[in-house]
């Protein structure tokens, strides 16, 4: 009972001081009919050594932990400087509360201010917030903000066909009840990217509140922020850039440089474990002119009474604790500890480190893709696009070879490899499915060559 120091004697003493003879009397406001008359039927308590062994045993059932993974789709298994675990694990950061009292929270406040500064620079925007839950909910928040900027409470949203599947599902859950209509921005079946040719789509200028494009898209292909800007202007809508992989900003031009209105993404690759899905980190950037409509916590710089530089939560009037039902969002927490990890990551990596890790992932992905492309040359039962990628690409199958993906995944698993994730593809492309493969600096050339071997074995059949 090491977290429960109250002794029986003190308990009796307190009851006496409260003028009652029993705990039941003290809590008389709880009706007897609702009181539990038994202990909870949960597993018995474990001591620390037993607890450690128990959790270790549960963990050991994750066979994936011992395998080499090529899974991606918005969450990427990168390395991080190990010192981040020590620094972010300091009790002063880990066990600190939300920085509502700035005099005792400058550690948190300054680190989030620095995080905001770095994310803004990376994305090419003037402002970043202090983070949201994840990339998918950041996309939702961007659309809601776009509507507010247009002084509308609902409308049509042109949604790029290449959005991650998880993101699409989350959009429906949030936007359907609010009356938003998600209009598909269909991809060009040849290039698997969105284009400026929107004449065939059932939309008119003035009825679209936002245009949303993700790059790289879910097939790993780099899309054009120029096209996003072009289409939003045509439609008089707010442009939203969803980053498929934040490291891509180390190699590819930032959306801010193209005059995009809002950028969102997931910052998990910045020093945060894949962790079976969470906690991750929602990135959200916009222009200073729009900052009053931005959701989420915001840290600003100011001075204290002696003129010293200090940081505090600012523009709180956007938030739920003041605006209540008129708040920009119901969000209360940010992902502060994850934003801290990301800030540490960006600080330790610096611009050169980020460019280097991006180059490693890119080069290795290009290497694997080119070896596999060479392997399947001349075949018409498998297809790999040669479009621009970052660290992820897709092998497409037609109806005649639909079962190959399961076959290759099984063959890879037998070799201790999780070869990626099945992704759906528009029928217009002529394919029925794809296998998405993501590569990071964790994969050695030997690893990649092994993948080529595994794949080639499945082709002999």
């Amino acid at each position, binding site marked *: 009972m090491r977290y429960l120091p109250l002794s029986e004697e003190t308990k009796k003493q307190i009851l006496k001081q409260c003028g009652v003879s029993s705990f039941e009397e003290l809590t008389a406001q709880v009706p007897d009919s609702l009181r539990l008359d038994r202990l909870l039927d949960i597993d018995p308590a474990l001591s620390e050594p037993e607890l450690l062994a128990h959790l270790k045993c549960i963990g050991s059932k994750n066979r994936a932990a011992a395998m080499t993974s090529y899974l991606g789709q918005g969450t990427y298994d990168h390395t991080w400087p190990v010192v981040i675990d020590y620094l972010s694990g300091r009790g002063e950061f880990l066990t600190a509360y939300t920085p509502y009292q700035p005099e005792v929270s400058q550690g948190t406040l300054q680190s989030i201010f620095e995080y905001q500064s770095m994310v803004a620079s990376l994305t090419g925007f003037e402002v970043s917030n202090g983070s949201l839950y994840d990339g998918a909910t950041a996309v939702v928040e961007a659309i809601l903000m776009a509507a507010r900027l247009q002084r509308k409470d609902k409308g049509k949203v042109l949604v790029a066909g290449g959005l991650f599947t998880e993101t699409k599902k989350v959009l429906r859950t949030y936007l359907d009840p609010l009356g938003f209509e998600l209009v598909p921005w269909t991809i060009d079946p040849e290039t698997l990217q969105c284009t400026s040719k929107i004449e065939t789509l059932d939309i008119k200028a003035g009825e679209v509140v936002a245009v949303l494009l993700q790059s790289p898209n879910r097939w790993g292909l780099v899309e054009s922020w120029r096209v996003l800007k072009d289409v939003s202007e045509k439609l008089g809508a707010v442009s939203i850039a969803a980053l498929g992989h934040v490291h891509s900003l180390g190699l590819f031009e930032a959306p801010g440089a193209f005059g995009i209105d809002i950028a969102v993404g997931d910052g998990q690759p910045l020093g945060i474990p894949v962790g079976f899905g969470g906690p991750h980190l929602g990135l959200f950037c916009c222009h200073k002119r729009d900052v*009053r409509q931005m959701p989420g916590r915001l840290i600003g710089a100011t001075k204290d009474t002696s003129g010293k530089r200090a940081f505090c939560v600012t523009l*709180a*009037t956007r938030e739920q604790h*003041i*605006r209540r039902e*008129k708040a920009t969002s119901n969000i209360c927490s940010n992902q502060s500890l994850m934003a801290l990890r990301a800030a540490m990551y960006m600080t330790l990596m610096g611009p050169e480190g980020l460019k280097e890790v991006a180059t490693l992932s890119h080069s290795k992905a290009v290497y694997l893709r080119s070896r596999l492309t060479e392997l399947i040359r001349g075949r018409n039962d498998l297809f790999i696009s040669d479009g621009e990628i970052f660290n992820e690409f897709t092998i497409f199958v037609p109806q005649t070879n639909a079962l190959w993906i399961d076959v290759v995944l099984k063959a890879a698993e037998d070799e201790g490899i999780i070869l990626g994730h099945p992704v759906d593809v528009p029928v217009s492309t002529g394919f029925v499915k794809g296998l998405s493969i993501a590569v990071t600096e964790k994969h050695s050339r030997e690893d990649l060559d092994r993948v080529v071997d595994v794949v080639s074995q499945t082709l002999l059949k």
Partner: protein
Amino acid sequence: MSEIKSDLLYTKEHEWVRKAAGGTVVIGITDFAQSSLGDVTFLDIPDAGKELRAGEIFGTVESVKSVSDLYAPVSGKVVKSNRALVDDPAGINQDPYGDGWMLEIQVSNSAELEKLLSAGQYESVAE
């Protein structure tokens, strides 16, 4: 003790109304309102041309820790909007009855002016 000017009319929502020439009125918020709010950080009011209806919300005024709605005291068309105040709302705190003026409205129904409070009546509201 907040300042209440005897020659103005008032509303329960702590706005003041000054009759001007040509059937218009100038409006703003009272000294009591600005001191309750604290330092004003943001003001949102409509531009000239907007039609207002008495009792409806026409804008908001914010301080660091609060947001208050602004209610139209009378119906009419906005003929002037104090954009300089929007750029720097400090005038609301420093000179609520002068530089802190917000809108000039062309009154569409002068009978509504009868419903406003006199300085004496407002005094009991602003306690």
